[in-house]
């Protein structure tokens, strides 16, 4: 989330004293999603380079004013993530065109399942669909999303596929929500203590009525990304509960991420821990924000599969979108 926006949002709620009393601003218009059904599932070596090209092409799509529509896209074909390979730690594309042999495909599948920002956010549990999370430069509209979906379909069709933008929105995310909560505290916070508070909130969220099942999603925060980083870096960065051993270990994991020029960790928790994000994906009904000890809820962003914000691009031969959500 842009810092400027965060600042504005924080200014709106400075007078709030508790999460309940804050009445935080709620937005519904940030994300839009395209779910793509490739012809034979996601993990096809021929498909993935075509997908990279097609997603890169989305940046060329312009609105009626001649300006590019897209502000950002999170997808298998566009995201960089931190991975450990042999003795190296790399910030690399999820799909590396030069690594689409059998071993590379296995690594890709493992990465999808292990990385908290990838998992069900980008690939359905049955690996038959992949999701593109889009942000537009201007307020989201159904027309803009349709234009991007059509462009994606045209790009893939030019590569020999037969993709159609589904008339309904019955994809793997149909009937689902993604909610992002932002919490702030006015003073620099103890990092490990903040992560402990997040862990408690996430546990509470997991047990809440309507929480997503593992097939459709999960909740995640900086804690999950740090746990992932600690896991791939090895050593003794994490304790038995998956929390950083110390604030020094925590600061050094930030140093690793920053040395690789990844922004993901900072986006989920600022290095001074004055601001935290908590995200839940795949729930079927609105959820209440769990309290995070010593923090105030300052912003809520909700994405809901809807005619305006969700499209399904079906490239399967039968051209039918199944109702996996049912």
């Amino acid at each position: 989330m842009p810092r400027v926006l965060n600042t504005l949002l924080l200014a709106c709620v400075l007078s709030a004293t508790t999460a309940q009393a804050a009445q935080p601003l709620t937005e519904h218009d940030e994300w839009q999603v395209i779910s793509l059904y490739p012809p034979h599932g996601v993990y096809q070596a021929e498909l993935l380079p075509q997908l990279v090209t097609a997603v890169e092409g989305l940046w060329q799509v312009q609105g009626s004013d001649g300006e590019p529509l897209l502000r950002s896209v999170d997808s298998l074909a566009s995201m960089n993530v931190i991975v450990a390979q042999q003795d190296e730690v790399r910030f690399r594309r999820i799909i590396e065109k030069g690594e689409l042999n059998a071993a590379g495909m296995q690594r890709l599948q493992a990465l999808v399942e292990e990385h908290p920002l990838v998992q069900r956010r980008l690939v359905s549990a049955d690996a038959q669909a992949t999701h593109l999370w889009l942000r537009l430069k201007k307020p989201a509209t159904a027309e803009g999303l349709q234009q991007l979906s059509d462009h994606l379909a045209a790009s893939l069709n030019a590569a020999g596929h037969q993709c159609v933008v589904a008339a309904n929105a019955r994809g793997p995310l149909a009937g689902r929500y993604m909610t992002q909560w932002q919490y702030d505290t006015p003073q620099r916070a103890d990092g490990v203590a903040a992560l402990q508070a997040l862990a408690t909130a996430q546990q509470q969220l997991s047990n809440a009525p309507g929480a997503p099942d593992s097939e459709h999603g999960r909740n995640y925060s900086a804690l999950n990304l740090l746990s992932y980083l600690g896991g791939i870096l090895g050593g003794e960065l994490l304790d038995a509960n998956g929390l950083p051993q110390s604030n020094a270990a925590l600061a050094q994991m930030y140093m690793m991420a920053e040395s690789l020029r990844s922004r993901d960790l900072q986006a989920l928790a600022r290095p001074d821990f004055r601001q935290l994000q908590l995200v839940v994906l795949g729930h079927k009904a609105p959820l209440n924000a769990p309290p995070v000890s010593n923090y105030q809820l300052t912003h809520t962003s909700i994405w809901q599969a809807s005619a305006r914000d969700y499209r399904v691009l079906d490239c399967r031969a039968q051209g039918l979108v199944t109702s996996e959500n049912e």
Partner: protein
Amino acid sequence: MKLLLKSAALTLLSLTMLPAFAVSEKSIKPEVLLEQVRDRDDGDDRRSRMILEQTMSDGFVRERELLMLEKKFGAERKAVLYFTAPADTAGTGILMFSYEEASGKDDDQWLYLPALRQSRRIATNSKEGPFLGTDFSFADIERLRVDDYLYEDQGTVEINGRTLHKIAAHTANGLENPRTGYSQREIFVDAERQLIMRDEFYREGRHIKTFEVTGLKEIDGYWTVTEAVMTNHVEGGFTRLLRKETTYNVGIAERLFNERTLRSGIQ
């Protein structure tokens, strides 16, 4: 990747250089002038203490202090950075090898984390991303690449008592350079000292960042940038880079530029 050693190149290495020879202020082509900036003499080695002071849009300030050693090895350059403050990152070290551009070889980089008690080789696809979380991107601080843009001489301007050449730069197709993330720049060069004193960065016609030299000193015969600021007009923050206790050509030992030394730290 042309990694941090090349960052050393501009912010840390090239922010210093001594003019190899005088430049005619009126006749020089912008490409030639920038090549002279790129190729200026910056000594055989250098030792400095650096402070990276990042101020976010809401006023939060994060400060890191580090010791930096740099040395030329023929056409290659090596650098090592040791973080000395704050305490939670003290002892962290970064070792960087940068190779001759013509070789086409990516830079090598290793990071030592005391909490991990081991060094790991690191590599990144991202040049646009922030340099150690600051408002500088790696592309901002790597060694200047003249071929990235087309240039237009816009005459000279007077800034702080110095005559600077103003050069307009833009990509050949008008789109953003995928490596740097910029489509256009306005560069202000002190030709005599062979230094970029100010650089304005644009993307899609929008002014997104400004680099400015705010402190300059002649040390051991080399003009050295002692303070520079990168202002981020999009996110609202800025990063100040301070160089202190700089010495040149001190005969820094080769053995300090290897992984083993990185793990044991500098004495």
